[in-house]
């Protein structure tokens, strides 16, 4: 049950690019892109993020990494409004999406838990 990762970007291409890049070093980790608006424009989509959380959830928890401010805001809103939280937990991280995303993916590939994956990505320790 690896941690699943969701990449929330304003650009669908960025989110998909991070997935393809991270997949090279983390072939068994659920890596899900949630980029762009519903109509394919630049911006973030709550519904895409929500769907991506479901897709990334394999029981080990889900980590969301966003790029600019509003991606984080959308991700946090989606997490706050989840009907049901993933069994393994869920966190939103404000770290560089490409560099932090690859580091998180490598950690998840090794079987690290949600907090360890977040630390590998460069995120602070979670609130106790």
């Amino acid at each position, binding site marked *: 049950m690896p941690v699943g990762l969701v990449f929330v970007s304003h650009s669908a291409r960025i989110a998909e690019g991070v997935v393809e890049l991270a997949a090279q070093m983390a072939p068994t980790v659920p890596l899900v892109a949630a980029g762009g608006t*519903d109509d394919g424009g*630049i911006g973030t989509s*709550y519904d895409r993020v929500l769907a991506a959380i479901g897709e990334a959830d394999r029981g080990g928890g889900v980590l969301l990494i966003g790029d*600019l401010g*509003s991606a984080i*805001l959308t991700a946090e*809103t989606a997490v706050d*409004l989840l009907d049901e939280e993933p069994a393994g937990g869920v966190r939103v991280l404000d770290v560089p999406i490409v560099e932090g995303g690859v580091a998180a993916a490598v950690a998840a590939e090794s079987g690290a838990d949600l907090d360890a994956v977040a630390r590998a990505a460069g995120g602070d320790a979670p609130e106790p």
Partner: protein
Amino acid sequence: MEALGTDWAIDWVRRSAAVIAEHKAELSGLDRAIGDGDHGENLDRGFRAVAAKLDDATPETPGAVLKLVATTLISTVGGASGPLLGTAYLKGAQAAGDAERLDAAAVVALLAAARDGVVLRGKAEPGDKTMIDAWDPAVRAAQGALDAGGDASAVLSAAAEAAESGAEATDPLVARKGRASYLGERAVGHRDPGAQSSAYQLRAAATAAEG
């Protein structure tokens, strides 16, 4: 004057949709100067979707109206203002609860909850050149009007006026949150688009409560 009911809430929302549509280009222009130029389009997309939902749904309390606004803005805006205003309307809806009518105190509680929602989501403080610079003075003016014995309509018009002044007062500020914070000193002299659109929405609430 009597307390405000579902009609008021629906009228508020429809007036917001109208004023945002009317000022769409202006809001995107403000955002072009210190952001990515989409604030008018973002909010117009969101409020159009809200108006379309209102055509079909029949929310039965002010809280239900605001909840519909919240979830629709969150799903459709596509920019920072979506989760921010969405959270504002959601917290406002929670403050309104199941009440069928809102008196002046309930309106103040609604506005305060909405402002707190924006803060919860965006972590901005007054003076950061964000929509908080409209919402926070609005709440404080509304409280003042309530303390002075004003009714719901008076509370809302005090809020609207303070929001308008608050939006204007963002002009000389340096932004510390949102995209405009990338610009440093170069944001000075430009109004924050989210503060301006928040002022429009609060004026819509006040106008809907008049007469």
